[in-house]
């Protein structure tokens, strides 16, 4: 590619449409992911992400339609169902939390794979496109799709900001929050639902297997810079934005490089840099001053 080609590829209508959607999703997933990371429930979103596949397959099989909103609606239903199953397992069985998460994740993913493979083996028209949801595929993202995921992202961020005080309280001291009369169970449920929404909205970008990175890595990077929640949300959102744009650009420039893994690697690079920066900052402190 010549420099001219590269510029054209970067500024093509398709790349810009994709960049808009992916950037919105990257910011919102990072913001809502902060609470999962702080609440030590980073991988609940992973279970929900893997559980979107049966819903996608079912939505396609039942309606015969491939519009993004139909498939994402199915994904949302099965993600929520899997979180319900997870909560039931935790409450009513002796199975420990880590195994419960692994069970829900593995079994629902298996069901999704079986459903999609079954549809493909029967030669159902368009079913092969469902496999794009495994690792993400932004190539087919239309303007309409981009607007859809951007709208979901905007709503999620608005809800998080509106409930910032409650969410912060529950993230740091759920016991105090409960004693003080806050509905901790409900606040938790809303946060988990918001995470599930972002996992669903980010599916076209990163796919079921990698989407959890968009919810975990930017908050983990932001955690290296601050101890304050509002600042952490801001930095995480910024990291999400930068890594999304870098991923889209890299994927537009490098042939065969998919957007999802590129976004993940970009945010991983930011995470490593943030970790290194914190080491430099803390090691420069005068002796006797402990790290906060």
């Amino acid at each position, binding site marked *: 590619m010549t420099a001219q080609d590269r510029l054209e590829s970067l500024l093509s209508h398709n790349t810009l449409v994709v960049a808009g959607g992916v950037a919105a999703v990257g910011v919102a997933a990072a913001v809502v992911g902060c609470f*999962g*990371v702080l609440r*030590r*429930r*980073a*991988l609940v979103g*992973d279970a929900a992400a893997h559980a979107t596949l049966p819903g996608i397959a079912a939505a396609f099989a039942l309606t015969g339609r491939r519009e993004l909103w139909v498939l994402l609606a199915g994904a949302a239903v099965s993600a929520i169902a899997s979180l319900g199953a997870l909560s039931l*397992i935790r409450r*009513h*069985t*002796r*199975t*420990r939390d*880590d*195994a419960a*998460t*692994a*069970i829900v*994740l*593995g*079994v*629902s*993913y*298996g*069901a*999704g*794979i*079986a*459903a*999609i*493979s*079954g549809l493909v*083996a*029967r030669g159902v028209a368009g079913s092969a496109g469902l*496999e794009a949801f*495994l*690792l993400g595929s932004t190539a087919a993202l239309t303007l309409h799709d981009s607007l859809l995921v951007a709208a979901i992202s905007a709503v999620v961020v608005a809800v998080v900001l509106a409930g910032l005080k409650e969410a912060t309280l529950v993230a740091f001291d759920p016991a105090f929050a409960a004693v003080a009369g806050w509905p901790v169970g409900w606040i938790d449920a809303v946060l988990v639902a918001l995470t599930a929404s972002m996992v669903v909205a980010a599916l076209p970008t990163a796919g079921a*297997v*990698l989407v*959890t*990175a968009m919810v*975990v*890595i930017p*908050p*983990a990077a932001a*955690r*290296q810079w601050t101890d304050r929640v509002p600042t952490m949300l801001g930095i995480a959102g910024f990291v999400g934005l930068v890594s999304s744009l870098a991923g889209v650009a890299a994927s537009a420039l*490098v042939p*065969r*490089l*998919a957007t*999802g*893994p*590129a976004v*993940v*690697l970009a945010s*991983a690079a930011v*995470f490593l840099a943030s*970790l290194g920066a*914190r080491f430099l900052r803390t090691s420069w402190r005068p002796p006797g001053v402990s790290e906060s």
Partner: protein
Amino acid sequence: MMIWPMVVAAVVSAVCAVVGTMLVVRRMSLLGDAIGHGVLPGIVVAVLAGGRPGGMLSTLGAVAAAVLTVWAADAVRRRARLSEDAAAGVVFTTFFAVGVVLISLYASRVDLDPGCVLHGILELAAADTVSILGVMVPRPLVNGLVALAVVVAFLAATWPAQVFAAFDTDAARVVGVPVGIATTGLLAMTAVATVASFEAVGAVLVVAMLVVPAATAELLFRSLGRVMAAAVAIAVTSAVAGYLAAWRWNTSGAGMIAVVLGLGYLAAVLVAPGEGIIPRLAGKAWLVWRVACEDVLAAAWRREEAGGVVPTAPGGLLASLAGSWLRLRGKVEGPIARPALTDAGRGEAETIVRSHRLWEAWLGRNVELPVDHLHPPAEWVEHYLGADVRKRIEEEVGAASSDPHGREIPTERG
């Protein structure tokens, strides 16, 4: 139907179940997930270096990548002030993304199908055969058997340390058990099991093979040995059933195996003896029924004692059902609303009233409660007192033959 893919599935499921039992009892299930994803770049690099998927080189690459995943997750957790799950989430998604990027960039040189990476293709795996004593045997089967031998040999060699570390890691460390070696070895065995099943079930579904059989077996058995044996049995059965279902409905073998494993777990949650949802509900229902029957009998006894007048007779649907049942059993007779005791029912009724009044007498002596507050607790406790407890209470309250309300306490019947 082909027999070889099914055998391959059964063997790799067994390997995963053995390793997975240790992961589950040590609360390391998510490390199994992390390793499943984390081995991908190791395998891809090995294949780029000229190895074959499932071959020696890619096994080494996978084990190295697994060790690196676990080390990196631990380092990130300690250095980056993150919880264990967030640190693992950062590391394994990054490793997996590296693997995916390598596959897509070097697609022409890497003989790895993206579908194969994610969920394996059993038929394809079984088609790669090697001749052993003149019989064409699938290479993944040979790999699986070798992995099974390695894993079993490792666990057998370190069994006491594994058991000690599984139940009390800190105590094990204090008394000098090499917990670190046991844990590192276990993680290496997880990598061996993962790479052995990689071609058959892929990077993601291996977590189901590792965790679900052991989690199911844990609901059914308590001792570690039995849990492991049951996990292997569940894994092999599910592999065969899942493969047959996939063949019948023409879909992914690994996916259907995971679905069957999930159904097995659901069944255990519902019917596991003692703690399954159905046995627990049945236990509660039986208790409610027994209390209802005993209340009807006790009310009839009191009516008899009072000469036909009793203000608090149990009513409602449950009481009438209990009354009908007792009449059927010949313990009461007459109208259901006001049944009279038969000789067969009188003894049982008397025991309940005796329990009730003994408890009231004991409370009256030992607890500062107004007399009119003694009845409600006794109304509950009367259903739970056995003959020996009644005897001890009688000894304690002494010769008092009446309860605090002044009513006679019936004597114990032979």
